């Protein structure tokens, strides 16, 4: 659906150059909800804005539905844009127009009969559950309602792709959840491909089937969300992947292991098996179970009193049982 090849973006202001994106390669399949996550300044916005050319890519190609967006002339670019809508962190609604007219806006840009516009806008109002707000103005809406209008407006032109730039970052957790469910429904019902930019891990966990981690303008990691989360992160991606829980320094003595369990291994009583088979004491430091799109991933931090040789055997044993293990401290 979207194929990004060797994309780079350099901002030039006078003599200053900022390389915001460096050699990005990504593929988004039809029907994906593709999450792009990274710290502030990682280049997330630059990346998503290159896709509809709100920013001009410096080098590289971006294919959307087989069409290279980068080489399009003004007129073709405008029609390509109608097939990929965008929603924004600040909603960007027209304050002078009612909710209904905001949703009808993209339809009024193309010459279609008034009756069709009425039908389509009414249908979209229903989809985002704002029938009763049809004649309200954006200033009379809550943040969540504004974003619903943003979503309905984005869907009006019946796009193939929905680009979301921090669409939930201005919303509270509960509203975020509602908006994400709405996006997920749309993805299922309409088969819409969605690209989501966020700095919140929870957004990715909740709805993205695939994820790319961006840092310093590079793609640091990409793949299925569940895979990325179940394997221990490297230095640069750890920040996002690992749970927030910090283990106090003084607890980090002896052999400390981080374990992660996925579907295949969550049901095995692995700890009691280790204690029995290797005759060691296992001390649980912390643990939790996370849900990533209804699949569970167990995260457990344990302390084992044993020598190095046995430790390697234990790790081996864990891996055989589909439990990923990472030593974070050697005793």
């Amino acid at each position, binding site marked *: 659906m979207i194929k990004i090849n060797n994309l780079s973006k350099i901002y030039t202001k006078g003599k200053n150059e900022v390389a915001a994106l460096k050699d990005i390669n990504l593929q988004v399949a039809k029907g994906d909800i593709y999450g792009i996550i990274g710290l502030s300044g990682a280049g997330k916005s630059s990346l998503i804005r290159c896709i*509809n050319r*709100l920013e001009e890519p410096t080098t590289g190609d971006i294919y959307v539905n087989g069409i290279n967006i980068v080489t399009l002339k003004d007129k073709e*670019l*405008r*029609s*390509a*844009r*109608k097939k990929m*809508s*965008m929603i*924004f962190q*600040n909603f*960007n*609604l*027209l*304050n*002078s*127009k009612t909710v209904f007219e905001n949703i009808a*806006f*993209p339809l*009024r*840009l193309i010459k279609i009969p008034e009756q069709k516009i009425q039908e389509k806008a009414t249908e979209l109002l229903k989809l985002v559950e704002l029938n009763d707000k049809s004649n309200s*103005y*954006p*200033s009379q809406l809550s943040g969540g309602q504004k974003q619903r209008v943003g979503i309905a*407006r984005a869907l009006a*032109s019946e796009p193939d792709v929905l*680009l979301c730039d921090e669409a939930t970052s201005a919303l509270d957790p509960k509203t975020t959840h509602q908006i994400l469910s709405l996006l997920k429904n749309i993805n299922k019902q309409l088969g819409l491909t969605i690209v989501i930019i966020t700095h919140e891990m929870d957004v990715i966990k909740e709805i993205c089937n695939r994820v790319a981690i961006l840092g310093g303008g590079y793609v640091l990691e990409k793949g299925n969300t569940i895979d990325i989360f179940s394997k221990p992160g490297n230095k640069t991606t750890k920040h996002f992947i690992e749970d927030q829980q910090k283990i106090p320094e003084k607890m980090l003595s002896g052999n400390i292991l981080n374990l992660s369990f996925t579907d295949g291994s969550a049901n095995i009583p692995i700890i009691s098996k280790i204690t029995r088979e290797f005759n060691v004491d296992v001390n649980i430091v912390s643990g939790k179970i996370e849900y990533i799109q209804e699949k569970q991933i167990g995260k457990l931090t344990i302390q084992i009193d044993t020598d190095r040789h046995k430790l390697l055997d234990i790790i081996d044993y864990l891996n055989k049982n589909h439990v990923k293990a990472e030593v974070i401290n050697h005793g």
Partner: protein
Amino acid sequence: MANIISLLIPSLQETLYMVFISTLLTVLFGLPLGIILVTSDENHILPNKSLNTILSWIINVTRSLPFIILIIFILPFTRWVVGTTIGTTAAIVPLVIAATPFFARIVETSIREVDWGVVEASISMGATPAQIIVRVLIPEAMSSLVLGITITLINIIGYSAMAGTVGGGGLGDLAFRYGYQRFQNDVMFATIIVLIILVQTIQSFGNHLAQKINKN
């Protein structure tokens, strides 16, 4: 009293005629100029650096001319347009030329206030620059534009009094002829009162309308 009123009525009519026709033409010319000033900017929807620089320069030059000098300076042009340099209709020409750059700057400020995010949203929806101007920039700036027109209108009333003294007629002319040249202070006061009422009415009406349009 009846005497004063019979003097005032025709002068008021002349003023209203001059002011409203001038305002109409000023808006007609100034609005597009103000929009061009914004949209031809480097990072806007129709970037055109040389047009922007030239337009901005012309506007600044026109605005730096004192009005009374401008009237005299453009006399040949006025004659060419209306066939004469004297009278109410002839006064409209310098009024429009003086007020248009002023109004264009006001339009520029109003249009710049429109949230760039909204413009980007419409670009992302595939809107053409013309559609963005007509369907986004103008409607979003409308409330502020109405206030701008109100200010311009009141400014033109002030200018029209000056134009009156050089043969344009209207209230300014009346006050000047009776108050200054014939020392009939009652006529001058009556004129001032009419002007105050006129300005107040226009300002309140403009405020009210702007408030009504504003949906923020």
